[in-house]
Structure formats: structure tokens, C-alpha cells
């Protein structure tokens, strides 16, 4: 097969690092070394934090909510670290907890309508600020494609949205996404297919 582009996937090295750090944290906790565990956990947070906030921000579209969700997810992970299976990739386990935390927050928002404001105003302010030369970040923000797609993704049914966000935005492999969501890989493929079909109009740019 030649010339068929594939979605970029993240480097596996980061995942391996996170899994190794998580195993060290677990070992420290089991040995009763709380200081050592907290120290290693700081390194673990640093290793996966950027990807975590990107995912939470995509789900919640609000920096304060995304910050809280990521914090909550890390605290939950630490509280249950002794039950972590070190033969499994840490990031799959962590992502499952983070996604569930984000979904809980979204449900909470539905119960309290009006409590949420998205950060679109902040993005617009960033774009409107005077700048002598547009940075690559500004150019990306100025492109409204992502915002259009993100809005359409939020209207998808839960499973389709989770499948698409994990495989597209989070650059998770479909096999790992299936593991994160607790789905059969074939079922995940169906959700992904339906998601892309519903997003057809925005993805074609029409």
C-alpha cells in the first residue's frame, strides 16, 4: 500500500516512560515510602500532563473546568495507585479515569445549565491582541476549522464522541482507545465510522 496517509500517532516512548514511573510510584507506596512516591508521582504528572489538559480542554472547552478535571483525575489515580496493574500501559488506565471525570463534569453542567461558559471569548481576545508577527499558534487559532469540528463533535452521541476524540485529538491507537473505553475493537470501529459519517459535512468543509 503506497500513498495512503495515516493519522499521526504519538511516540510510544512517552507511554513507556509513564508506565515505568507509575510502577515506581506503586513500588514506593507498597514499601511505605510516601515521600519517594510523591516525588516520583510529580515526574509522572509532568510526563502526561500536557496530553491530559489537551484532552480535558477538548471535552470541556473551559480552562477552569479542564484544570479541575485533570487535578481530580491525578488525585484519583494516586489514591488507587496500589491497584494499578503494572503490566498495562499507564496512560490507558489514566485516560479512562480522565475521560470519566470529564464526562461527570459534563453531566454536572447539564444539571446546572448556565453555570458553564466556554473559552471562546478568551481565544478571541488572544487573537485580537496586537502582535507584530502572527505566531504559528495564532495562525492555528485563527483557522476556525478546529472550532467548527469541535462544536460538531460535542453534538455526537457519547460513545461516538469518545471514540473520535481519543483516536483523532488524543492520537490514541484504536486498540488502546477500545481498551480505554472498555469496548471490543470492532465495536470501537463502528462508533468511529458512525462519528465520521455524522461529521462528514464539517470534515469536507462544506
Amino acid at each position: 500500500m503506497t500513498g495512503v496517509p495515516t493519522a499521526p500517532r504519538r511516540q510510544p516512548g512517552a507511554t513507556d516512560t509513564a508506565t515505568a514511573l507509575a510502577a515506581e510510584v506503586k513500588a514506593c507506596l507498597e514499601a511505605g515510602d510516601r515521600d519517594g512516591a510523591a516525588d516520583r508521582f510529580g515526574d509522572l504528572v509532568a510526563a502526561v500532563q500536557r496530553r491530559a489538559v489537551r484532552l480535558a480542554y477538548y471535552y470541556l472547552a473551559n480552562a477552569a473546568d479542564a484544570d479541575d478535571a485533570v487535578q481530580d483525575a491525578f488525585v484519583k489515580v494516586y489514591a488507587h495507585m496500589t491497584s494499578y496493574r503494572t503490566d498495562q500501559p499507564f496512560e490507558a488506565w489514566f485516560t479512562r479515569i480522565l475521560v470519566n471525570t470529564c464526562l461527570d463534569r459534563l453531566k454536572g453542567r447539564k444539571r446546572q445549565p448556565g453555570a458553564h461558559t466556554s473559552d471562546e471569548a478568551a481565544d478571541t481576545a488572544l487573537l485580537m491582541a496586537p502582535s507584530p508577527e502572527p505566531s504559528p499558534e495564532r495562525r492555528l487559532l485563527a483557522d476556525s476549522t478546529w472550532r467548527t469540528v469541535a462544536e460538531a463533535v460535542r453534538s455526537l452521541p457519547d460513545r461516538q464522541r469518545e471514540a473520535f476524540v481519543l483516536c483523532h485529538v488524543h492520537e490514541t491507537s484504536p486498540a488502546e482507545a477500545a481498551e480505554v473505553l472498555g469496548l471490543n475493537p470492532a465495536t470501537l470501529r463502528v462508533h468511529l465510522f458512525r462519528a465520521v459519517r455524522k461529521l462528514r459535512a464539517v470534515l469536507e468543509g462544506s
Partner: protein
Amino acid sequence: MRFLRRHPDTAELGLSLLDRADAATTGHLASCAVCRRRQARLASRLASSRAGAQAAADAAFPPEALERQRSAILQRIARAGSARVIAFPRTSAEPTAPHATVRDPRWILAAAAAGLILGVAVGQLERRPAATNAAPVAVAKSGGATQAVLRDDTLLSDVDEALSRDVRPEFGALDGLTPIVYETR
């Protein structure tokens, strides 16, 4: 290799980018330049969407915000670690240890004996006031011990008189059928 006779739709092209292309789509793409261009456009739009989303998140969370967040997480963990843990009250649904249900049989016997003794003692205490109260009432009603004795004498004399009287002829047959005590012994 299988070939897709029609052009694959956007969902099939998207799936080939996000997951993997099936054999039929791959075969079609290899021979159809139009669909390859469609797929390339879709890949570009997906990449643009992803990069824009990541840039927005990175703008909302600059490195100093991540540092603050990391500090906050570690502080929360430290607080949780230093907090005194109060054991949650055990519920009835919680399984209990086997040794908690099996008691020493000697304790069971001792408890049963103590209960029996206590029950007898309480019974005696309850009966005693009843007995002491009954006598004065009887005495009070009869007007004293001498009157009680007189009443008994009257009853016995009535019985003697009844026995000494002649039997009425109409009850003779019935009397003959009734066994007498000393005859049955």
C-alpha cells in the same frame, strides 16, 4: 486484492485515516486518483482540526499554568496523605470475619446458666408479693383467722348432713350406679 467498485464515501475515507483502511478501500485508492485527492484533503482537514485544538489547549495552559497545576496536585496528595483516617462504621452488609461468629461454647453455657438463675430469682420475687398480699385479703374478707376456721367447720357439717340424709327414691338408681370410693380400692 479486492476492489471497491464505487468511490468510498467520506466515512470510509475517514476510517481509513483514523483506524485502518479495509482491503477494498485500499485497492480502490490505489487505482483512483480522485479518491486519493479526497482522502488527502480529508487528512489535511483532520490534521488542521487536531492542531487547532491542541494549540487552543496550549494557549489556555501555558507552562506556568501546568507548573501551578502540578503543585496543586502534589499539595492535594500531601493533604490526603497526612489526613487522619477515621474508620467507617461497619455495615451489616459487610462480611464479618469467621471467628467473630463462632463464640467459645463455655461462654454460651455460662450465659445460659446466668440467665436461668436470674429468671428464677425474678420469678420468686414476683411470686412472693402476690402470696403475701393474698393472705391479708383472705383474712380481711373473712374477718380474721377464727372466722375462716368456722367457715370450714360449717362446710364439713353440711357435707356430713347431706351424706346422712336418706337418699331420695328417684335418685336411687343413679346412686346405685355411682361407685363408692372404698369399694374401688
